[in-house]
């Protein structure tokens, strides 16, 4: 028997444990190298066989931006009461696009990587998280364009504005991963979920103050419960906080159309971020519960 010729150094020091990865989001971030490679793979997958590659991730937002800008700005004349409507719109679009991409790619991520998941033990949370990071990577060039735009007209953000932007981004990222975890797991059982997501993302565009100013909500529902419900939407908060960073500083104090923002924007943002964090914990629990049957259901 070969066990007699066993070299002592061959005996692993590791304890006897259940094989495979125990999963969990904390394990995902411990495996940063693997995550980096998976993000690279996702990027390659998204642009497979495409000549223009990454360029496509600008085309869609650019077309959307142009369409909204002309319809909302010139046809509905929203230009008139919003100074620098273009930044108001674009700052919102970056966030909405970030969220919808995270959500829809994240939802499909488990099913799309079923070959790996069926054969190799690794934390499955890696895939939704990688989708979120790929989407975040795509926002960088949009942010750069936005930055160039605001710098041209003069932009001097305060520390408050900067922290608002970061907070907004964090809210959308956390919320996106939480939803992606829930829906990617559910999608394994019923592929209907990817269609539900597609339907849901249409709604997102209209539920945030992006193509219309927050001003309108305030005028219509100010002080009522509807306004509170509206502001409970993490994407709406993310958009408002991002506008606080890019749009608000471009509107001068003497502007005939002063900026209207919700009261206690930052406090609200912090509370929403905490709520999204709690939701993420539950999403993780839900994911872990469904994960056990992934291999046979895929």
């Amino acid at each position, binding site marked *: 028997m070969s066990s007699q010729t066993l*070299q002592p150094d061959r005996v692993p020091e590791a304890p*006897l444990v259940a094989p495979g990865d125990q999963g969990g989001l904390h394990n995902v971030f411990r495996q940063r190298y693997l995550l980096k490679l998976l993000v690279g793979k996702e990027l390659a997958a998204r642009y497979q066989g495409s000549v223009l590659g990454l360029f496509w991730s600008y085309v869609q937002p650019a077309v959307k931006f142009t369409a909204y800008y002309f319809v909302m700005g010139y046809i509905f004349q929203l230009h008139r009461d919003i100074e620098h409507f273009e930044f108001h719109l674009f700052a919102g679009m970056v966030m909405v696009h970030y969220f919808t991409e995270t959500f829809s790619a994240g939802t499909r991520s488990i099913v799309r990587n079923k070959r790996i998941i069926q054969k190799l033990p690794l934390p499955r949370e890696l895939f939704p998280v990688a989708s979120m990071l790929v989407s975040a990577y795509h926002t960088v060039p949009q942010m750069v364009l936005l930055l160039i735009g605001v710098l041209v007209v003069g932009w001097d953000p305060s520390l408050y504005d900067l922290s608002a932007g970061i907070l907004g981004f964090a809210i959308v990222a956390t919320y996106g991963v939480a939803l992606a975890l829930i829906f990617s797991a559910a999608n394994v059982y019923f592929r209907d979920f990817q269609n539900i997501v597609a339907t849901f993302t249409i709604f997102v565009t209209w539920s945030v103050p992006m193509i219309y100013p927050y001003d309108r909500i305030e005028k219509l529902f100010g002080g009522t419960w509807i306004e509170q419900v509206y502001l409970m939407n993490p994407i709406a908060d993310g958009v408002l906080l991002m506008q606080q960073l890019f749009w608000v500083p471009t509107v001068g104090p003497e502007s005939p159309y002063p900026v209207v923002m919700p009261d206690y924007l930052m406090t609200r943002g912090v509370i929403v971020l905490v709520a999204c964090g709690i939701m993420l914990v539950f999403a993780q629990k839900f994911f872990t519960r469904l994960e056990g049957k992934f291999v*046979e259901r895929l």
Partner: protein
Amino acid sequence: MSKSIVVEHASKRFTMQYTRTIKQMSIAALRGQRLTDTFLAVNDVSFTVEQGESIGLMGLNGSGKSTLLSLISGVMRPDEGSVLTRGRIAGLIAAGAGFHPQLTGRDNLYLNAAILGMSEAETNRKLDQIVDFADIGRFLDVPVGHYSSGMSARLGFAVAAFAESDIFLADEVLAVGDRPFKRKCMARMEEIKKEGRTLFYVSHAPGSVRQMCDRALVLVEGRLGFDGPVDEGIRFLKYDDGPQDDVMNQEDEDLGADI
């Protein structure tokens, strides 16, 4: 002696769903048919493997070999009982599984190695060995989608075979690849065995099991039907008919049936 794999009363139940859509479900419900059914793919299996042992897992198609291997690799968890392992696991159930056709062989190599738990430095160190073994030459920087099935299988095997591990799980090793490559794989597995790693080998080929393993497990409809010496295991499975002069020939004949 150190226990490497401990399986205690492990069972894995699969649910078969006959209907998928609401329409089908309602029709089936109206007719009084069953919507789902369950069966035990692995049924109350227990055994212990010492570090450095080499085990041949055999059984007919559908006897639960792949499921048992998935339980040991950690891809699936048992519904009842427990499966415990010690140390790192690498194996060929993984061969080429994570390959993305759009990425080059090199990128896929790094990704697969990372999934098997290798760091970037470790992969860099073993890169030459892996590439040399896979023998894909200048195709290394070509997208894997352009590879022949044999080439991607070779690359997959090479990554798994050179990954640092304490337990080596092997299946479908010889199902792909030509004869020279099969010989090379067997030689590499022999080396792995000599290094004192635990070898868990799933095969239909009695010749290679006899050559490679010192103990056989035979699964019969999800249950462990036999646990003992290889020759007896082969006899138990009635795989021993026919002449066995040429081990490789015998293997080739048996390879038609994949697990």
